[in-house]
């Protein structure tokens, strides 16, 4: 049971880290819809 929980924590952590990195454009991923990047961040 503990191993399953550890794995779940690992996956959750990974998703969170990727989300933050993508949110602030530190890693690639979905390109912003806006041509010059405006509107990113707040919306």
């Amino acid at each position: 049971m503990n191993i399953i929980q550890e794995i779940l924590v690992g996956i959750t952590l990974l998703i969170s880290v990727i989300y933050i990195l993508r949110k602030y454009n530190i890693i690639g991923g979905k390109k912003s819809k806006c041509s010059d990047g405006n509107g990113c961040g707040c919306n």
Partner: protein
Amino acid sequence: MSKQIKVSLIGNPNTGKTSLFNALTGLNQKVGNYPGITVEKKEGICKLERGVKAHILDLPGTYSLNASSIDENLVIELLLNKNDKDFPDVAVIVSDVENLKRNLVLFTQIKDLKIPVILAVNMADRMKYKGISLDIPLLEKELDAKIILTSRDGSLGISELKECIVNFKQISTKPSIDLSLIDENYFNSLSSAFPNQDLYKLWVVISQDANFGKMDRNSLDILDFKTKSTSELKRLQQKETIKRYQFINNALRLGQVIDSSKAVGYRAILDRILTHKIYGYLIFFIILLAIFQVIYDWSSVPMDLIDTAFADLASYTKEVLPAGVMTDLLAEGIIAGIGGIVIFIPQIAFLFIFISILEETGYMSRVVFLMDRVMRKYGLSGKSVVPLISGTACAIPAIMATRNIENWKERLITILVTPFTTCSARLPVYLIIIALVIPEGSFLGVSYQALTLMMLYMLGFGMAIFSAYILNKILKTNRKSFLVIEMPNYKVPVLRDVLITVFEKTKSFVLEAGKIILAISIILWVLASYGPGENFNDAENIITEKFEKFENINIESEIASHKLEHSYIGIIGKSIEPIIKPLGYDWKIGIGLIASFAAREVFVGTLATIYSVGNTDDVESTIKESMSSEVYSDGSKVFTLASGISLLLFYAFAMQCMSTLAIVKKETNSWKWPLLQLIIMTLIAYVVAFISFQILN
């Protein structure tokens, strides 16, 4: 899937377009940004008869098709480009019954683009107060258009409007004006040079200052067509406007009667009071004070309920789920983190309710006028007022809104000082710290807590103006822009519109900030629950040995605290502690400061997560309880008046927002300005927080 009818709502600013949009779409709407520009785009779906649906697009307010700003450009670009996915099947031109003459200029221009047009004469419920009567059948005949009388509250004309939209194919697209009457030679030659193009569309393209789409002036020159000079084009544009007004005057002379003796007017009196150079500011001050007081009074009960509910939920999660790290993450990281944002829904919603009411009544335009008067004295132009005031919601759209300031230096100053105004992300931090360190009690019926919040808002605004004054001296701006603002009529707010605005804004606050807070809470929980070396992994033995001879010591609590100090987050926090210690903060607050660089609201969630990990009780504490019971090793409280005020001042001045830095970089096209902004604002914050802590301590 049946085809949707594409409808654009177009009209002058302050004609009640958004009210009509809300009446047509209800909650079936979404707000976005137009790609690459500042302007907000609202879209929604409206169900019509016979199962037909309409896709409604609420376009930014524009006075005419002679563009002078980005908002107006956007409307023109859409209406000229048939290939645009939003190009309307039918345009609903929303006009204000009290300003029909001016509003009809845009109507005639769009009709001349041969787009089916419905004229919605809005605020028709006010006709009786203004002594206005309209002969609709006659006006329909004169303007060759379908006219619907509507009201802002949606009680009038909505079903007729929906019916008209369904039957849009029956609407005449005959132009209102014969262009050859403006300059026969010019328009005839234009027509022969481009036989396949629509004449008015060509004229709109040629006469604009900016180029739109693929049909620009240069390409027209290539085709042996001699375009006129800018001044000649301006002259033709003036002639066009005169022709349009002649057409409108003829129609209104027959179809509109205004009996001013029947008009009930209170606007002039109200304007005189609300924009008075002394009373105007006094009234604004009292209104602000009342808002902050009410935010505190009304939201304390729901805030406590939410706080307790999340603490109970965390305890319950630990009880029912099998013991283990994932359960701990859920209870101490995720639930605590979400609780850190949900707790502020009542205050944020109340703040937006009041802002929305002030906007709806027309009072906000008077505030802009009042502030313009103040800002001029400090070297800011009138056009900087709108970004600074809208910065109270979020600095990002506010910084983008500086694009309508023509003078670059003025624009730069506005961009640099806007983050000082108190944005809604600072509110959660202020609220929780004020609740912790400012004593209860009141002065002249206003609580100390509400007064503190009000002072923080004024401090932010004052700092923005002061910095602008200094920057103005350094950057030496000479030319000034002038603010031209239309004062809308005073209106009773429509409850539906207020509620929709509050719902949309609160939803966006919770969802956007909530996602970041949740992700950061998870990362922080992991960093707080794991650590390197013996000190962390062997904490039980180290603490048991250390305290085995002591009685009355809560060993569990000592172990948790020891582990937290030697976790990854503890190591990071301890390493920055010497820098923040003079400000009165411990390493946990330091982590909060670092985490809130992502977004200021993250601060509370961060502390909630860190304190939750350090808590060994079976029952989880509320955020407020955890923060107020936090003590140093000598037993003294972490959150005192001195450290609290220092923290409030730090947040008032510091540039704690990555998104804002990114947008400043984008708008100034250089890293120099955002970096300078970051360094200077952080330095100011540090120095002010340091001085306040040292004095109060």
